[in-house]
């Protein structure tokens, strides 16, 4: 656990003193070999090693360890004194160790304890030697012990090393956690997207139970249950959080099954299974199947999903942490631009206004051009601030935010905006909405800055967990070199993160222009469901 190089100076002095004393006693025992001397040397060695290990493990308690050590050392020395007096050398150690901790009372205590033990064990009937013999033996050593303690006390103490020493293990584990977090963050799109995990859960379920419709509902930031992934056409529309069995499963933390409406002659069983991590419910799996599941089948399914549940929970938590951090950073950036560079450029604009007013005719035109350019720049910064401050919230859905954004940007940029929105009431998870919004913003910015288009078509259709976003313009297409390739890469990363597919291409069949299409859908579309059933329950 501790290599020598990681020991602080005090720790090294402590370990060194103990080992040196134990080695000295052992050496003296070898010089006068006898059963008593070997036993005493082994006892001293054991004491030294135990005391070293214990005080390194609980470094803050090293003074108490030294006190106990003095007691045991006194006992060993006192017992062995008649036949192996050299063991007394070890009595230097406890006062020294106590002195390293820089307090005097424990030092005195260790000396006193050893004095008492070494000399008390001479009581008549206990030992051959007299009290005076023992006094002659122990007193010089104990006085030397006090001297050594003085040395130990005045050994320089680097303050930082002392402060850190006790918490080393904490830092080590914190660092390990942070390193794991970094690894996770880097591989985010590969393993930790909630939608992907929910889809795996559905695949796992489908492998065990013959499922016609299934949906994974997870708790979103606002507290409501939102569909993360579905299997079977329209499953998320059919199996909603409004179904009482979902609430039952959620509150009772147990699976609930109930026969649902029949289609033709087939009877369907609807099952709601709480997704749990320990005692917490993080979501509900709702499915429709042809038969009632037995206890064993349910148990097996729960077992199979339990590992996915932990991953889903972690992924959602990580998503939340990441989006909190990102949102805060965006706000900070917006403030910084607003209070800094934007104001400075605006004030340069006012300065140029003065110059324009005072300039002779020839220069005026150039200055006016400069003024125009500064106004354009300021406007650009204002739009950046607006972009950075735009965000979805529990009260403002993706559709609402996007339509406000598109209209404002459109009218500021001179493009004619054609907006089409079809948004159901069920919303996507907030993190997903955020990523879709950022992709739309990026696409709109690219169209505004690089395409030279007159018309901007934005359409968004959301039917959670599915969504489709199209941002199209009628400007010059991608074939002309444009410097927005970085933006496209960012959009692609965002799409990956929410399990979406992104296409950026020249528009076909409508003359010219570019379109960006984002599709959030199940990668394994299964069309086993009879759409007629969806309609039936409405009538």
């Amino acid at each position, binding site marked *: 656990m501790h290599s020598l190089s990681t020991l602080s100076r005090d720790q090294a002095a402590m370990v060194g003193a103990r080992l040196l004393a134990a080695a000295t006693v052992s050496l003296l025992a070898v010089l006068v070999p006898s059963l008593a001397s070997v036993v005493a040397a082994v006892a001293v060695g054991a004491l030294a090693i135990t005391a070293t290990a214990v005080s390194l493990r609980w470094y803050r308690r090293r003074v108490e360890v030294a006190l106990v050590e003095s007691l045991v050392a006194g006992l060993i020395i006192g017992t062995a004194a008649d036949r192996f007096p050299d063991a007394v050398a070890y009595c230097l150690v406890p006062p020294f160790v106590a002195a390293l901790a820089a307090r005097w009372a424990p030092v005195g205590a260790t000396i006193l304890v050893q004095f008492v033990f070494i000399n008390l064990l001479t009581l008549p009937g206990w030992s051959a030697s007299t009290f005076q013999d023992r006094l002659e033996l122990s007193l010089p050593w104990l006085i030397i012990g006090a001297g050594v303690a003085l040395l130990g006390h005045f050994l320089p103490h680097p303050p930082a090393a002392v402060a850190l020493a006790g918490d080393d293990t904490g830092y080590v584990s914190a660092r390990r956690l942070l390193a794991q977090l970094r690894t996770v963050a880097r591989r985010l799109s590969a393993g930790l997207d909630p939608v992907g995990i929910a889809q795996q859960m559905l695949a796992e379920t489908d492998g065990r139970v013959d499922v016609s419709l299934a949906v994974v509902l997870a708790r979103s930031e606002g507290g409501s249950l939102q569909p993360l992934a579905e299997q079977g056409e329209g499953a998320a*529309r059919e199996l909603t959080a*409004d179904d009482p069995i979902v609430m039952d499963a959620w509150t009772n933390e147990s699976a609930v099954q109930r026969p649902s409406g029949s289609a033709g002659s087939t009877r369907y069983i609807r099952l709601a299974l709480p997704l749990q991590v320990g005692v917490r419910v993080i979501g509900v799996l709702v499915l429709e199947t042809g038969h009632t599941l037995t206890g064993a089948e349910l148990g097996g399914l729960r077992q199979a999903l339990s590992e996915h549940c932990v991953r889903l929970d972690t992924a959602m938590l990580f998503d939340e942490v990441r989006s909190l951090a990102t949102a805060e950073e965006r706000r900070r950036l917006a403030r910084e631009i*607003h*209070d800094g560079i*934007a*104001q*400075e450029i*605006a*004030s*340069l*604009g*006012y*300065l140029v*206004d*003065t110059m324009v*007013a005072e300039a002779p005719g020839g220069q005026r035109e150039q200055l006016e051009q400069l*003024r125009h350019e500064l*106004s*354009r720049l*300021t*406007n650009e*910064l*204002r*739009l950046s*601030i*607006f972009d950075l*401050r735009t965000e979805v919230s529990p009260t403002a859905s993706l*559709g*609402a935010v996007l*339509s*406000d954004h598109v*209209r*404002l940007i459109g*009218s*500021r940029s001179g493009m004619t905006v054609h907006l*089409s*929105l*079809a*948004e*159901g*009431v069920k919303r996507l998870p907030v993190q997903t909405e955020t990523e879709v919004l950022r992709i739309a913003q990026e696409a709109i910015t690219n169209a505004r800055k690089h395409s030279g288009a007159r018309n901007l078509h934005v359409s968004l259709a959301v*039917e959670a967990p599915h969504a489709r976003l199209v941002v199209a313009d009628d400007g010059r297409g991608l074939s002309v070199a444009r410097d927005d390739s970085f933006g496209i890469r960012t959009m692609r990363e965002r799409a990956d993160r929410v399990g979406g597919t992104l296409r950026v291409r020249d528009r076909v069949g409508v003359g010219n222009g570019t379109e960006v299409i984002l599709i959030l859908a199940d990668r394994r579309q299964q069309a086993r469901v009879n759409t*007629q059933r*969806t*309609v*039936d329950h*409405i*009538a």
Partner: protein
Amino acid sequence: MATSVLLIDDHDLIRQGLRRAFERSEDFTVVGDAATLGQGEQQVASLKPQVVVIDLRLPDGSGLDLVRKMRQHVPGLGIVVLTMYAGDEQLFAALDAGASAFVPKDAPAEDVVAAARHAAVSPRSFTAPELAEAMQRRLKPTGPQLSPREREVLDLLAEGLGVAAIARKLYISESTAKTHISKIYDKLGAANRAQAIMNAIRAGLIASSAPSV
């Protein structure tokens, strides 16, 4: 007599630029400037300017709070709000707070002077370069968007027609009618007909006088 102006902005260069712009025009005199809400409030009281030009965001709070206070205490004061923000939300907030004009900071200083001139003459009316567009943006519906066919179906639903009757009336099959109804329910966040109609009325998709179920 020249109109007296007070400038409130936390950036020195902005204040200097505006001061020079006002000094260029004969009909204004800058009587003071302030960098914070606190200073601004004091100077409004002591200097009694006719027009105040104030930034929306100041180190010790929102300029709008002071706008509201000034409008309450000095009803005839001309108030020009300057902003670096681009959203409509700030424009309408300035309007609500009682400002006389709203000018973005990318506009030339002459626009600020012109806005101050307007503010001095009619402090209780509101002008902003993008007011018309912003109003238009605000009036456009942001609620559920139904297709024309869905609107028709919704109207018939509101009249109390059943699925079969709707299908007959629109010359579509019953299953198509059901699909339309399902879509409408979904877009309106309704579980049944009554809810759908209530939500549609709230969203302004049908008039509340229409007969309902």
